């Protein structure tokens, strides 16, 4: 068994010349393969030619909507002129360095935290007491001479990132607790956890967002309003936690019961067993479905537009409808949105593959 694993994990040897010839014959060895390969190459060249023509050759790089109207290619002046609005929405124009700085800080901190070598309790504490408060102060203002900016003016990319990033970061521990509660021996806790998970999973995200933004305020006493952004954020956290709980539960079931018994016989109490033995093994196993869920949620945050929050996709749509560009730059706008969502989803996917590899080599 160990031999087979070692073989499978051995770094790939450079292929000998015969094998490299084999690669050619894999594509063109049989008539069937040749047809498929040639058709694919023709299709790729055709699409690439169309794309390059539209993106560069026939594109308009300077001018107004009128110039774009007659050209058959992409309309880049639209993107240049509207990019700031698409990124930051209604955030006051003069203050837009703040969301920009907040975004860069968030990206930097995330990239740093993605490297396993830097994982420590200090990093976690830094996130809670330094990074998140600084992000909030940058966005909201009101102290250190920063003009206060109400959350209703937040929009665009920072809003999308905040909703998904803060949402998933807070949903993860909540989901783990829910998963443990569901696996608990105490019936009351188990029933509560099952009830919560099944109810949340039984309704669509839209209905929870509607409850949070449309119904909840009507139940509140007069004069008390919870910030709309906070309501949507809480809804997303609760929704995501139920799904995370089920994924974590799958991981927990994969950990042999003997592991728990071994821990207990060493005199560890429940939380120690979970934290040091069960969860590390369980979480490691669920990285691929978990990242799949995260990517899905990152894109699902676009649903907040139906409750009147202006997320990135919404600012893009609003930009497209500017009278000066209306009907001219529809594709360009959506392309910008697609590029941004694709980039970050692809990054998350790549990081997930890296993590899987990282844990496999250290624990094999």
């Amino acid at each position, binding site marked *: 068994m160990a031999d087979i694993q070692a073989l499978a994990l051995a770094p790939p040897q450079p292929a000998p010349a015969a094998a490299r010839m084999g690669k050619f014959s894999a594509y063109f060895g049989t008539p069937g393969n040749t047809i498929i390969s040639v058709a694919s190459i023709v299709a790729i060249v055709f699409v690439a030619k169309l794309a390059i023509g539209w993106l560069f050759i026939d594109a308009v790089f300077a001018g107004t909507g009128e110039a774009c*109207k007659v050209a058959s290619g992409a309309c880049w002046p639209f993107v240049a*002129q*509207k990019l*700031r*609005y698409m990124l*930051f*929405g*209604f*955030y*006051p*124009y003069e203050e837009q360095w703040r969301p920009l700085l907040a975004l860069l800080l968030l990206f930097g901190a995330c990239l740093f935290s993605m490297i396993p070598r830097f994982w420590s309790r200090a990093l976690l504490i830094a996130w809670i007491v330094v990074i998140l408060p600084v992000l909030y102060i940058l966005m909201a203002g009101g102290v250190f001479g920063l003009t206060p900016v*109400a959350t*209703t*003016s937040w929009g665009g990319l920072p809003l999308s990132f905040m909703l998904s990033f803060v949402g998933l970061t807070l949903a993860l521990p909540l989901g783990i607790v829910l998963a443990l509660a569901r696996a608990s021996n105490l019936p009351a806790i188990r029933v509560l956890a099952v009830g919560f998970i099944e109810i949340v999973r039984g309704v669509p995200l839209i209905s929870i967002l*509607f409850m949070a*933004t*449309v119904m909840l*305020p*009507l139940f*509140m*006493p*007069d*004069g*008390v*309003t*919870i*910030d*709309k952004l*906070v309501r949507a954020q809480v809804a997303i956290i609760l929704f995501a936690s139920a799904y995370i709980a089920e994924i974590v539960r799958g991981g927990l079931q994969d950990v042999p019961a003997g592991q728990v018994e071994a821990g207990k016989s060493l005199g560890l109490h429940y939380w120690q067993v979970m934290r040091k033995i069960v969860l590390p093994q369980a979480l490691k196993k669920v990285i691929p479905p978990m990242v799949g869920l995260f990517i899905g949620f990152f894109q699902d945050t676009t649903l907040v*537009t*139906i*409750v*009147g929050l*202006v997320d990135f996709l*919404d600012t893009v*749509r*609003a*930009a*497209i*409808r*500017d*009278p*000066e560009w*209306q*009907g*001219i730059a*529809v594709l360009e706008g959506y392309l910008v949105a697609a590029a941004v969502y694709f980039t970050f989803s692809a990054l998350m996917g790549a990081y997930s593959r890296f993590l899987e590899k990282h844990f496999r080599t250290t624990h094999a």
Partner: protein
Amino acid sequence: MKQALLSICAAALGLAAAGSASAATTLETVKARGKLVCGVSLATPGFAAPDDKGRMQGFDADICRSIAAAVFGDGDKVEFVPTNINTRFQALQSGEIDVLSRQTTHTFSRDASLGLDFGPTVFYDGQGLMVPKSLGVSSAKELTEAAICTLPGTTTAQNISDFFRAINGKFELVVFESPDENRAAFYSGRCEAITSDRSDLASIRAVANNPADYIVLPETISKEPLAPAFRQNDSQWGDIVSWSVWMLMAAEEKGITQANVDEKLKSEDPDVQRMLGATEELGKMLGLDNKWGYNVIKSVGNYGEVFERNVGEGTKLGLTRGPNALWNAGGLIYSPPIR
């Protein structure tokens, strides 16, 4: 102690507890906040749409500015909250916004059942139909078995059904979720006709490759008086919204513009003197500064200026005044006397 604990919890949750706000009138709340919170649409060119700097521009946005100017003397003390069709009335009911200025049609059932009241009609619109010229049709009654593109509005589809039932005509409704798809389907010939409010048809026509290829048919098949809305049972606030709008209309009638309002302060006309607060104390009666009228006009201009700047013939929408001309110029825009 309990009170203290509660308020700490509230703060922690991001609650904006407004103390004993239940007793406060909307005017008091707005003044205490230091700005007006106005619900508008997110992106309707001409009515409310962000410019390159993310500033809301448009007819509806200027109505908000005029109310802010009446209250604060500064038309920029507005926070615009983009609302959509689903959330607009709830946002008003829950106190999230002070005024809803979002191309909202004043109808009986909305007025009677939603806990809100409407101000004066600021824009008389109506549903119409647009067809390509090449179709050779000059009246909606000639459209037989036509495919008609529309958005999944609440009343648009109903109005068109009612219209064709009345004339015993047949049609096929083709519904699109987004305005972009809807427009593209019409241009590409998927539908023979497209239906929407006339102001909206004008903007659809304006962005066509060749606007001259399309004509808006003469029939107006529904009445769509668009008006600002506010919570009911707050007459003082309702008065402020209504008279801010009427001030715009009265100013046009009296020839007061953004440019000449300072000269008009010295006008001999007693009506103008009252409007601008040079004589008498009308503003006080509304709980406002006595120069509220001056402030409104100084901030956004008169009704005609607001119309021309945002949707008039010099803009991409290119709307004529039509029913939105002053009453003495053949339109429906009529302000009660300010005296």
